[in-house]
């Protein structure tokens, strides 16, 4: 219990709109150990960002609503905190790096002010001291201190993302939520930024929830991996388990759609079909309509997580069959 920084249990988040109810996150459970990094993998619309915002209790409401579940952060439930406790927790215990650095910074405040704000909110120090600290943070992420007085429009995308990282780390949070921190960046910058994040969280003994749809990033950074599909976790385990003993057909599909640099001529194998409309999820397993292994049974009931050994779990009914193996049966 105490070795976990975050424990999410049975989380259900919905967006209630005029057109219907969007079931963004359904019965989600996972945990992150102290000083560990969990990769949350899934395609766009799988509910990854909603999960991260839930941990900060920042789901935009209306239309968003956390229906049930609990999010234990170092022993206290985020979902029962009052406004004051939430403000204390946000930025201080849990910080977030956002996906798009072009829009995540306030265009009319200097970079220094924006980093200093985070420090001022959580520590009783003067404006001048906080600005000094902000400059130190800038230096830490590889930006010259003198640029603290510049505005976001004077920075490139990669540098802005460094600033966003500086803001997130300014108060030394215990848990960092990184929501696709490299997606909006140039490929050449992606590795740099990822390397920086990795270095900083190791130095500062932080835990991280890394949201991404890039399995390469996961392999490089994460201790554990959770694969998310249509608001549910379909496979979870250590990075080694997920990569070497891939169990869920969806995870397999994700791997198959990765380009193989060693065989450049080879065609990619995409997962056929589209993710189901979260307003109208199919009755049984959400992945069944796209799954090459699906049987009639899959369309009837939702599979629970099945233990495969170690910390490896998979939500797939095919394993009820004897001797079922990915790629083997079909």
């Amino acid at each position, binding site marked *: 219990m105490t070795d976990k920084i975050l424990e999410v249990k049975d989380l259900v988040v919905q967006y209630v709109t005029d057109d219907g109810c969007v079931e963004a996150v359904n019965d989600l459970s996972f945990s992150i150990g102290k000083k560990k990094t969990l990769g949350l993998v899934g395609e766009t619309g799988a509910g990854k960002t909603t999960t991260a915002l839930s941990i900060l209790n920042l789901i935009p409401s209306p239309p968003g609503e956390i229906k049930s579940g609990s999010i234990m952060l170092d022993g206290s439930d985020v979902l029962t905190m009052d406004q004051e406790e939430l403000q204390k927790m*946000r*930025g201080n215990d849990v910080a977030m790096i956002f996906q798009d650095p072009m829009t995540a910074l*306030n265009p009319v405040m200097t970079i220094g002010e924006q980093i200093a704000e985070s420090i001022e909110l959580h520590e009783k120090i003067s404006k001048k001291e906080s600005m000094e600290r902000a400059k130190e943070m800038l230096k830490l992420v590889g930006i010259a201190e003198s640029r603290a007085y510049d505005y976001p*429009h004077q920075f490139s995308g990669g540098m802005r993302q460094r600033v966003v990282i500086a*803001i997130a780390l300014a108060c030394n949070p215990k848990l960092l939520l990184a929501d696709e921190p490299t997606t909006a960046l140039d490929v050449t910058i992606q590795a740099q930024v990822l390397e920086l994040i990795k270095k900083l969280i190791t130095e500062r003994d932080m835990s991280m929830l890394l949201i991404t749809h890039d399995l390469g990033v996961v392999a490089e950074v994460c201790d554990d991996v959770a694969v998310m599909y249509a608001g549910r976790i379909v496979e979870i385990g250590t990075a080694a388990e997920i990569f070497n003993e891939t169990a869920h057909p969806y995870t397999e599909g994700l791997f198959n759609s990765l380009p193989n640099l060693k065989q450049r001529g080879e065609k990619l194998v995409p997962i056929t079909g589209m993710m189901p409309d979260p307003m109208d999820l199919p009755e049984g397993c959400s992945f069944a309509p796209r799954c090459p292994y699906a049987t009639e049974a899959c369309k009837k009931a939702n599979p629970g997580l099945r233990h495969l050994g170690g910390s490896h779990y998979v939500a797939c009914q095919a394993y009820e069959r004897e001797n079922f193996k990915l790629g083997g049966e079909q």
Partner: protein
Amino acid sequence: MIRYIIKRIILMVPAIIATSFIIYFAMNMTGGDPALTLAPENATEQQIEEIREELGLNDPIYVRYGKYMLGMLKGDLGTSYVTKRDVFKTFMERLPNTIELAFTAVLIATLIAVPLGIYTAIHQNTWKDTGGMVFALFGVSMPNFWLGLMLIIIFSLNLKWLPSGGKEGIRSLILPALTVGMGFAALITRTTRSAMLDVIRQDYMTTARAKGASEKTVIFQHGLKNALIPIITVIGMQLSNALTGSVLAETVFSWPGVGRLIVDSISKRDTPMVTGAIIMSCVLMCVVNLVIDLIYAFFDPRIKAQYSRKG
């Protein structure tokens, strides 16, 4: 930045020349002979001819325009036909009254409208939002003179709290300023609301919340500052409108401002007075617009950078 200001001031010159050209020719070609209006009722043809000669009305119009423009360079906008007084001086006497009314009206409007606009934006699609918007719609649709008359009936005739017109101290300022301000408030409310709605959905608002900032800080420090540009624009437009004379309100409340000066002069066919007053209004409008553009730079570093680049 300074180069930008100088450039803008130089650009005012063609604007003022164009205005003066249009207004001078329009005023002098609408027909009607000012000499006839000015002459006593039983004047002889010769007396009228003398008046024409005296006013220089016998020269061709382009000659008269040329003389007028030369005079303008020396700060001479001519002499009123009616009062025989200097046009520029008369205008400047009236201007402080208009400035007083304009600033008070815009101040009242801003104090009501900006908070209301923010409030309705935060409570979008609730009855609070609807209530605010109904108020704004009411404000836009209400004609100025009607509102003025209603206020006079209620506060001057029935309650006898405030004077119905004239200019005696601060009490006589309240009703005209409210009248002018209400229409402005409605527009500013709508602009503030839509600007805030735009900003509220931005990612940096979530960033601020994720830092642990309170909702108040998020809305005012991060939100409002970003929404200010359209709000300043609309406030500036209202201000320059009001500064060139709120004709209706000044008339209803017999407020001795520029707007009423122009209306009175038109009805008396006082061509030099009308022409001069309108050219001065144009100058005033240009100055206010320049000031507004400079205020943008103060609030938005991106605009400031643009000004410096354009030099």
